[in-house]
């Protein structure tokens, strides 16, 4: 038997082994296990603020850790820093490239980052008298779909070149490249303990990575199209994904499999974004059909909807204190709900 055939055989054997091990652990589903749990209350949130200022589609938003400031990115070529309490604009950062797809706020509040079809992640200092570009992180060979700061000196990126990378902001170099996806990486999320991260890609897989040793530890399948959104459950033991296949799924890390799917026969729009409430009980998922649906994460039932945007909801975010949910849309507005 040729070497290639031998390896194909071994690969098939290992895949069967993994499938059998997952099946052996699958003694219930989350919906069944949670059948005795009281349903989440019907969630009716009101728009408290509509943030107007962008002149084109909004592609991304990210809360600052102070739960008051947030950054949004629009293809009008600007990042806007908002005070969500007042609705006022604190800063407008002009971008070299208007084809922005992601933005991020550093935990310290000192820096923000953006990136997109320029294949770069640009880091800006908000604390200098005028906002200054700190570094242009340039090594990806595809678009930048997502960026998340670990600190003022390290940032993680996900790219259309199918890789994710950990960068040293001071040197501008990639410290680690995470290789394993075979499709464009569309999203990433940091674990609560900051030792791991998960990525979602156009290969319909979600992957769990060890930040320090650079290796892929687990791969989660089940989606049948691009995964556009991903988030950790607050305990760090599960991840929630949103996909172009119109479903969201929760995968448990320790049992290494999907435990529930959030879907509805009438929903035939892709999921663009998602965020969890602080207890993990509510999932806010933004869809192409202009709505943000609210799911009971344990029972898999829809418990509410945020309607108000006149175009696709492209981004969703809940601040650390869980006091509201922000939605951003191609209609150029951001809305704060609670």
């Amino acid at each position, binding site marked *: 038997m040729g070497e290639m055939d031998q390896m194909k055989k071994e*690969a098939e054997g290992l895949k069967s082994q993994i499938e059998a091990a997952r099946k052996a652990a699958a003694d219930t589903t989350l919906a069944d296990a949670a059948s005795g749990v009281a349903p989440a209350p019907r969630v009716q949130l009101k728009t408290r603020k509509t943030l107007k200022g962008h002149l084109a589609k909004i592609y991304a938003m990210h809360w600052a850790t102070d739960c008051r400031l947030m950054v949004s990115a629009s293809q009008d070529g600007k990042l806007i820093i908002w005070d969500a309490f007042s609705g006022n604009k604190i800063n407008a950062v002009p971008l070299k490239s208007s084809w922005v797809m992601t933005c991020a706020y550093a935990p310290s509040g000192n820096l923000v980052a953006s990136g997109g079809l320029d294949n770069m992640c640009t880091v800006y200092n908000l604390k200098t008298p005028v906002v200054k570009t700190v570094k242009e992180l340039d090594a990806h060979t595809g678009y930048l779909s997502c960026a998340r700061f670990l600190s003022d000196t390290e940032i993680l990126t996900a790219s259309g070149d199918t890789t994710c990378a950990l960068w040293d902001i001071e040197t501008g170099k990639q410290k680690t490249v995470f290789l394993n996806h075979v499709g464009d990486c569309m999203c990433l999320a940091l674990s609560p303990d900051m030792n791991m991260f998960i990525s979602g890609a156009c290969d319909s897989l979600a992957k769990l990575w060890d930040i320090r040793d650079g290796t892929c530890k687990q791969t989660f399948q089940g989606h049948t199209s691009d995964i556009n959104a991903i988030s950790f459950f607050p305990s760090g033991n599960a991840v929630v994904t949103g996909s172009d296949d119109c479903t969201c799924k929760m995968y448990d890390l320790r049992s290494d499999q999907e*435990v529930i799917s959030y879907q509805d026969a009438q929903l035939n729009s892709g999921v663009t974004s998602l965020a969890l409430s602080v207890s993990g009980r509510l999932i806010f998922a933004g869809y192409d059909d202009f709505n943000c649906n609210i799911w009971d994460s344990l029972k898999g039932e829809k418990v509410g909807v945020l309607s108000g945007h006149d175009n696709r909801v492209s981004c969703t975010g809940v601040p650390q204190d869980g006091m509201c949910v922000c939605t951003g849309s191609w209609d150029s507005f951001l809305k704060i709900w609670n």
Partner: protein
Amino acid sequence: MQTVMSSKMATSNNIAQAKRTVQQLRVEASIERIKVSKACADLMHYCGEHAKFDPLLMGIPASENPFKDKKPCTIL
């Protein structure tokens, strides 16, 4: 000669790729898995313990809502 050389290189690239795939599958096959029932119990427990600290689940009194516009009071 040229095509033989490039097909040999393509084959060795394919073998290298296949080796990486097998290596990755070995890593993923070797992990310990807990029962889904235990995983679910822990998820449900987490939600239960943290529900009272979840403003979007519990509701926010108007006086404590930093996003709600404060309207002036009129004394009639």
